[in-house]
């Protein structure tokens, strides 16, 4: 038991130490950086599997860092939600790192390779730490580590647009974390504790003495985490940052980085503040209204874009709306659907961005109206793209369907049946901007004269295996989540029963 209790801490420390070895290693031998980073992530992935195997029996792991017990020291708690999130984070990161073996050489200058892996591993360790930490100030520090290294991932490309996007991201993200830090200050002022469990105990006692201060604190947290997680009116940094970054960075930013902030928000909202405050205050309605606007307008803005990666980035804004809708509903099915959507969307967006990167790698096409005949030129990549797009729209047998179905059930439970209309409308909008791409790729007739021969034949994708394998694995993962969601739902149900 003692050994297992220490493992979550090593999940944070190992990438942290490895990240500082990268620039030194890059001076000596640049080729070793990518395998070493992948190896590190693989070790972390195995550790997370061991942890999850332990947590699934129903006992959360808790560990006091450096032997200082909770009220003073930093406590690490891995419950079922955290365990599945750390598996997701390390697994997806490992796939993206395998993908970036060749993609990084193509997209980045040679001199920044070592620093790219530094930023990536720092981001990984920040995300894992944020999910498992139980101390809100420690959470703030890890939020900043994740945020700054995510900015570095965007800026790594070094072009005009990406530098600009990175600066915008950095400024807005710092405002967001300023709001979060102020909220933490308010909590410390009210309760005198920084550990989430102790805050919950203390808040239950003194809640009635500070009604207005608690409202203020909650609004500060909603604004702060809203900026960080790109909730609709605060999403302005996201499209630029996600579309101008190199493809592996876009994938990790869009699928993981914005999600870990939501997990942290979930922990503060449901564990520290507790359900009673959540149901009494206006916060629930605020979140639902913002989420519905995000779902509709994010999809609408995505529909307008003609650059593929910008379209995918705006689509992320809409999907974040789904997750926040599930949190705002606050019913068992709503929360379960929100968590499931976090996981499924991580798979879908990784797949879409990696496919977009692969297509740009092979053909150099970046706009949505240039996809003629792509289904024959790169059948496996385009097949994975189709799977992810179908899942995004919410067609049964794919992962996205189950989370949308859960959201609909959740809105029925919360007695707000009109929200189902919003979900259906947003799904239809999703269909209007994904289906034309797929249709053009498979059924367009225009390119025959260019090719020289009348009948088009399937040919093998001419991209390296290190790019092809992660795409296929992620696409299979989407289908697996759509057909056998049982294992994941088991973890999620444990969390939901613990939270509600």
């Amino acid at each position: 038991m003692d050994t297992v209790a220490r493992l979550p801490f090593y999940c944070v420390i190992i990438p942290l130490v490895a990240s500082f070895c990268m620039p030194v290693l890059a001076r000596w031998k640049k080729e070793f950086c990518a395998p070493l980073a992948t190896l590190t992530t693989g070790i972390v992935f195995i550790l997370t599997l061991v942890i999850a195997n332990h947590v699934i029996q129903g006992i959360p792991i808790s560990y006091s860092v450096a032997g200082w017990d909770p009220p003073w020291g930093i406590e690490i708690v891995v419950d079922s939600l955290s365990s599945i999130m750390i598996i997701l984070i390390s697994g997806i990161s490992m796939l993206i790192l395998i993908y970036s073996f060749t993609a990084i050489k193509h997209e980045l200058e040679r001199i920044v390779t070592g620093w790219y892996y530094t930023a990536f591993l720092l981001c990984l360790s920040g995300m894992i730490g944020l999910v498992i930490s139980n101390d809100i100030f420690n959470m703030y520090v890890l939020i900043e580590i994740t945020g700054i290294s995510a900015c570095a991932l965007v800026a790594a490309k070094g072009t005009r647009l990406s530098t600009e996007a990175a600066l915008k991201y950095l400024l807005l993200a710092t405002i967001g974390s300023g709001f979060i830090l102020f909220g933490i200050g308010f909590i410390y002022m009210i309760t005198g504790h920084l550990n989430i469990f102790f805050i919950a105990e203390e808040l239950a006692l003194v809640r009635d003495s500070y009604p207005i201060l608690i409202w203020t604190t909650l609004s500060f947290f909603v604004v702060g985490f809203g900026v960080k997680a790109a909730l609709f009116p605060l999403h302005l940094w996201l499209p630029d940052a996600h579309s101008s970054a190199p493809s592996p960075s876009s994938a990790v930013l869009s699928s993981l980085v914005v999600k870990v902030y939501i997990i942290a928000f979930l922990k503060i909202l449901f564990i520290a503040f507790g359900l009673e405050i959540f149901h009494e205050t206006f916060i629930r309605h605020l979140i639902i209204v913002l989420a519905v606007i995000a779902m509709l307008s994010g999809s609408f803005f995505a529909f307008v874009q003609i650059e593929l990666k910008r379209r995918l980035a705006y689509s992320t804004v809409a999907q974040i709306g789904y997750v926040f809708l599930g949190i705002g509903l606050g019913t068992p099915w709503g929360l379960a659907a929100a968590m499931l959507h976090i996981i499924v969307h991580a798979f879908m967006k990784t797949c879409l961005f990696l496919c977009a990167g692969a297509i740009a790698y092979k053909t150099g096409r970046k706009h949505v109206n240039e996809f003629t005949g792509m289904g024959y030129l790169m059948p496996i990549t385009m097949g994975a793209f189709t799977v992810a797009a179908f899942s995004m729209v919410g067609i049964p047998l794919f992962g996205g369907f189950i989370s949308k179905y859960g959201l609909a059930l959740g809105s029925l439970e919360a007695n707000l049946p009109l929200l189902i209309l919003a979900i259906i409308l947003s799904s239809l909008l999703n269909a209007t901007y994904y289906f034309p791409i797929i249709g053009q790729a498979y059924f367009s007739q225009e390119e025959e004269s260019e090719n020289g021969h009348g009948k088009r034949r399937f040919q093998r994708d001419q991209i390296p295996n290190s790019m092809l394998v992660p795409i296929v694995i992620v696409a299979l993962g989407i289908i697996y989540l759509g057909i056998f969601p049982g294992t994941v739902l088991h973890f999620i149900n444990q969390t939901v029963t613990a939270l509600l």
Partner: protein
Amino acid sequence: MHDYATRVVFRYMLLFVLLYGVYVVMHGHISPGGGFSGGMLIGLGLLLYILIFGQLWDTRFRQMILDSAIIFVGIGGILEVLKFIIPHEHGPIGVPGTLFSVGIISVSNFGIGILVASTILGVYYMISEED
């Protein structure tokens, strides 16, 4: 900064700035002070030295300073992380005036000092290498 006055004054001041930095680092664990503020003093002292005299050095030497700064950040970081990896329950309170009386904390304190000083140098070099 090819200013005669700055050069002459700082030539005598540098030693005291660094000495004060080391003093603050060494007293961090039992009295006011600490690795961060001491490391900041050392780093800023070195930075000031480089700003005043460093224009004469060639790029190869600058690159070497940057490399060693990165390595020292790593060493300092590992020393600091030791504090979290080795559980030290409720260690000794410490005796004023004795350096290693608080066990692992004093080692970490040196680590933080090294880390902060070399971070400042590294950041300066990284920004100035851009153009």
